[in-house]
């Protein structure tokens, strides 16, 4: 028996590659920081793109803190991968393409894995996660038995701090599923949720992702990140009710003022403005299915979000450009790839614009926002495509 024969015998004992590589599983086991962040050089401004894909879920009141650990790391089923890839098989490719540009990335659906499974009174809430090519994380939440769930993609900016997160609410037939979720950087080993009544609850963390469902009546006050020694390294105020929005989450502190009302394919869309904390200004976009709040520092030029919104039945989508301009700005122009442009109507420095379908097509998409002062001098330009936010 020669060495090659022996080698052949060894070969026949163990397959050449007995199982598939799974780097995300390694990282989940290690509870390492989201690895994909470190490869990027140019993180774009703190951005959250939150989509609601259908709200055909049952209410989930009385959510507990229990999780099914066996779910963690399980490969995502195909239908979840499809959702994580922005549902490109659902005939909404144009919106999906806009979303991809919005988050400047491709979702690595092949690496989609289960993050958590949370028992609820409405059934199991499954949460899958997939990294994005630009260092973000997309999560898809689905209640067992529900045909559709929620997709959200977050990309952390380098200056976002060690802990970012939001309190979200999804309304279904007047009932609400509420939770806090977000991402924590590597040195945050554990996350706690402080409620307004002073009580504190642990928040489950898997890798960088964390999640805790809120029971009825629970009002979140802050998320607290601690290092391995138990020292607080970050405390982030949170307030319930917002969808998407800006990280770190901040909420309006002043009264809401009605600014715009649009009649759209998904029904009435309203936009309100309000003062935010620390001199920020906020805008709130409300549809029949969801509400998005963003609070930003007052810019020299323009602050904006560029988001799709969906009706509850997931049969229609619209794309909205919303935001506000700085005090020096007198006019705001949206330019398109085909050279055309439209002037944004400003009301109390805010604007809301529903992107026509013709401008979803490649070659006709929004390209840049141009802000001018009263003398017509350009004082700010903000690229939209491909640089997104």
């Amino acid at each position, binding site marked *: *028996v020669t*060495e090659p*024969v*022996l*080698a052949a*015998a*060894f*070969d*026949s*004992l*163990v*397959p*050449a*590659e*007995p*199982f598939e*590589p*799974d*780097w995300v*599983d*390694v*990282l989940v*086991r*290690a*509870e*390492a*920081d989201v*690895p994909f962040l*470190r*490869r990027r050089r140019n993180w774009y401004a703190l951005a959250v793109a939150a989509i609601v894909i259908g709200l055909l879920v049952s209410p989930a009141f009385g959510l507990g803190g229990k999780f099914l650990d066996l779910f963690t790391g399980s490969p995502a089923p195909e239908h979840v991968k499809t959702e994580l890839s922005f549902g490109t098989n659902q005939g909404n490719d144009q919106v999906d393409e806009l979303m991809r540009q919005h988050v400047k990335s491709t979702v690595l659906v092949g690496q989609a894995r289960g993050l958590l499974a949370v028992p609820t009174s409405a059934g199991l809430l499954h949460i899958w996660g997939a990294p994005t090519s630009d260092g973000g994380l997309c999560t898809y939440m689905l209640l067992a038995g529900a045909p559709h769930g929620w997709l959200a993609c977050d990309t952390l900016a380098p200056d976002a701090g060690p802990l970012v997160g939001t309190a979200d609410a999804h309304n279904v037939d007047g009932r609400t599923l509420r939770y806090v979720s977000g991402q924590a950087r590597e040195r945050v080993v554990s996350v706690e949720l402080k409620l307004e009544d002073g009580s504190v609850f642990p928040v489950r963390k898997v890798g960088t992702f964390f999640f805790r469902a809120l029971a009825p009546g629970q009002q979140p006050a802050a998320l607290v990140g601690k290092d391995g020694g138990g020292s607080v390294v970050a405390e982030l105020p949170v307030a319930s009710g917002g969808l998407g929005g800006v990280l770190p989450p901040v909420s309006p502190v002043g009264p809401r003022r009605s600014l715009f009302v649009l009649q759209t394919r998904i029904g009435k869309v309203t936009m309100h403005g309000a003062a935010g904390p620390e001199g920020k200004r906020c805008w709130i976009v409300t549809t029949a299915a969801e509400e998005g709040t963003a609070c930003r520092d007052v810019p020299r030029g323009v602050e904006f979000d560029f988001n799709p919104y969906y009706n509850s039945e997931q049969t229609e989508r619209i794309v909205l450009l919303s935001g506000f301009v700085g005090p020096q700005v007198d006019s705001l122009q949206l330019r398109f790839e085909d050279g055309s442009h439209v002037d944004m109507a400003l009301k109390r420095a805010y604007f809301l614009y529903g992107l026509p379908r013709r401008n979803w097509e490649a070659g006709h998409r929004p390209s840049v926002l141009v802000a001018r002062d009263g003398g017509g001098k350009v004082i700010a330009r903000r690229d939209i495509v491909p640089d997104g936010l």
Partner: protein
Amino acid sequence: MDVRGADLDEIEAVYRERFAAFARTATAIAGDVESGRDAVQEAFAKGVRERHAFRREGTLEAWLWPIVVNEARDRARRRRPTAPNADEPASDGRGSENDALRAALAALPDRQRLAAFLRYYADLDYEGIGAVLGITPGTVGATLNAAHAALRKSLEEVRT
């Protein structure tokens, strides 16, 4: 400049480039595919967690191998028997040879068996095997010779 520690990209690169070697070796040591998978994944997770301890005194792969081997051995000890156990029966008529090889491997001293796995499945040279097992390359040679002799003998017995 402090050059200690490995970063995640480096570990991931080793994981992807040498995945088949780690997977096969761990499976052989642990005794079944599922245990092998768990050993590799857990070993690399440990490597990720403890990456700051890598002192760059050798290659990162050499630093990772003992972690993988130890994880696989832990699972083999829990499992028993220690011989590799292909999950699927061989389809090329090698069933009896495989049985014989398994039996022969199970009968080998622990160091010889590990050395054989690291030679055949990880394709490590004597120096690499020695680094994992904590023995000199010369001792690796002697260990492998002894292992080969025993394994050859068992296969020849089957063939005759």
